[in-house]
Every structure is written in structure tokens, then in C-alpha cells.
């Protein structure tokens, strides 16, 4: 302890502290989406039949495909971490790039899905939507809010991971110093977990 904490030493590194901070941040994200889940549960309790009916409008195949895409992207992130721990820079970058590609794929499929909904007049403030029962309007309101916010998180996660890719290339992230990549990965996994809940709520069990 003696000289490690001496006042004029270089900033001491605390990897666990960094991860602790990241997890606390993830807690705020969990609760943020938790608020939306609370709203969903409340509304679903109010309009069970309408939710069932409106849920049938969604394309479950696309939803499930996207789930697999996102799960796989989560896998590649964690694999990139294993690679960096083994000092394998090439593999790390390959895995990370795969994640980026998969993430973009997710967004493309998602925008496809949204476009179809817009086409059918199922978007907030649409004249057609206004003619549907109240519960269905609320369902689509929640659908767009929750998948939209999730989409924003995907975009944020992608930017973070892209930045990590650059850092790996520059060897600022390397075998003996990878907590940044670890934290970036944590964020990406959380985005994945949220989607794990969104899938059944909207596509399967509504």
C-alpha cells in the first residue's frame, strides 16, 4: 500500500472500480426500461383483449429472427473478450466486427418491420390507428416507444463497440488492459437482455 497511494504517483488503476461503475450504470438502464415494463403491465391489465388482438398484427418471424441475430452478436462480443484475454488481436477484431455486422442487421430488419407498420397506417397519430379500439392504440404506442428506445440503445451500443474496435486496433485495448472492452460488452449484453423481454411481450404472448 505504502507507495502505491503516494500523493504524486500516477493515477492508480482500478479495474474492479471501473466495472462497478459500469454495473451501476446498467442498473439505471434496467430501471429505465423497467419503467416502460411497468407501463406495459399496467396497460395490459387494463386492455387484455385488445393487446391480444393487436399483438397478432406483428410479424413474429421477424421478431424471432432478430432475437437470434442479437443473441449471436452477444456471443461474438464475449468471444472477442476471450480472444483479447489470450492476446489474440486478430480474432478480437474479427469477433467485434461480426458483432457490428449483426447489430446493423438487427437494425435493418427492425426498420423493415417499422416500415410495414407505417405502410399499414399503424403509427402514432395515424388516421387509421385512431379508428381502432383504445387498447390497440395504446399497444402500438408502447410498441413504437419500447422498440424505438431499444433501437436507440442498439445504435449507442454499436457506436461504443466501433470505438472499441478502433482502440483494439491501436492497441489501447490489449491483453493486460481490456476493462473498456469488457464494459462495452456489458452494455451490449444488456441491450440483448432487454430484447429478450421485448420479444415475448409484443410478438409472442400478447
Amino acid at each position: 500500500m505504502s507507495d502505491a497511494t503516494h500523493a504524486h504517483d500516477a493515477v492508480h488503476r482500478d479495474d474492479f472500480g471501473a466495472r462497478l461503475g459500469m454495473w451501476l450504470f446498467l442498473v439505471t438502464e434496467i430501471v429505465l426500461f423497467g419503467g416502460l415494463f411497468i407501463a406495459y403491465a399496467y396497460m395490459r391489465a387494463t386492455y387484455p383483449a385488445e393487446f391480444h388482438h393487436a399483438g397478432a398484427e406483428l410479424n413474429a418471424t421477424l421478431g424471432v429472427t432478430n432475437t437470434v441475430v442479437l443473441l449471436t452478436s452477444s456471443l461474438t462480443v464475449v468471444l472477442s473478450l476471450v480472444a483479447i484475454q489470450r492476446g489474440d488481436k486478430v480474432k478480437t477484431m474479427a469477433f467485434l466486427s461480426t458483432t457490428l455486422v449483426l447489430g446493423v442487421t438487427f437494425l435493418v430488419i427492425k426498420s423493415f418491420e417499422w416500415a410495414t407498420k407505417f405502410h399499414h397506417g399503424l403509427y402514432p397519430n395515424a388516421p387509421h390507428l385512431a379508428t381502432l379500439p383504445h387498447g390497440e392504440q395504446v399497444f402500438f404506442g408502447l410498441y413504437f416507444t419500447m422498440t424505438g428506445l431499444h433501437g436507440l440503445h442498439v445504435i449507442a451500443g454499436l457506436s461504443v463497440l466501433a470505438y472499441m474496435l478502433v482502440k483494439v486496433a491501436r492497441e489501447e485495448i490489449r491483453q493486460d488492459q481490456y476493462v473498456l472492452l469488457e464494459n462495452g460488452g456489458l452494455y451490449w449484453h444488456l441491450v440483448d437482455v432487454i430484447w429478450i423481454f421485448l420479444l415475448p411481450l409484443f410478438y409472442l404472448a400478447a
Partner: protein
Amino acid sequence: MSEPAITASAHADAHGIEHPGYGTFVKVWLALVVLTGLLVLMSHFGQSYAVWGLLILTPIKASLVFYFFMHLRYEGPLLKTIVLVSLGTLLIFFALLFSDVAFR
């Protein structure tokens, strides 16, 4: 607890070595995909099955991600507690909210 800085660096060093390899994670991923399939399957049998699938399988999937992909398995009690506290809080929020919604 009393000498956090020391335990921290020791932990960080040990961290890399005790890490599992590619295989574990691929297996976890397979389990996740299978569970997703199961979830889809259940939803074909009707609404109530779908809801049961939602209530049972989704938390299992989420825990797998938390536990393996997010390394909670390899972390000390602090991070685990933090996650449990946040989930517990949400659960209580739900319960209290439904003390209103369910009894109106």
C-alpha cells in the same frame, strides 16, 4: 473490505487467468437459441402457454446472459447484490402498482 485498493488489483490480475474459453460461451449461446425456439413453440399452443413461456423461460434466458456473458458468475458478491437489488426494487414496484390495478 478494509483494504479495497489491494484486493482490487489482486482481483484484476487473477481475473484474466481464471476465465473460461470459447467453448463455454458457445454452449450458453446454444442454450439461449434452444430456449428461444421453445418459447416460440409454446406460443403456438395458445395464449396461456405463451404467457407461461414468458414468465418462466424469459427470466431463465436473461439469467444466462447475466450469469455467463456478463460474467456475473466470475464476480464477487458485490456486483451480484447490485443486480439483485435493482431487480428486487423493480419487482416491488410492480407488486405495489398492482395493489392498485388488480383491486380496482
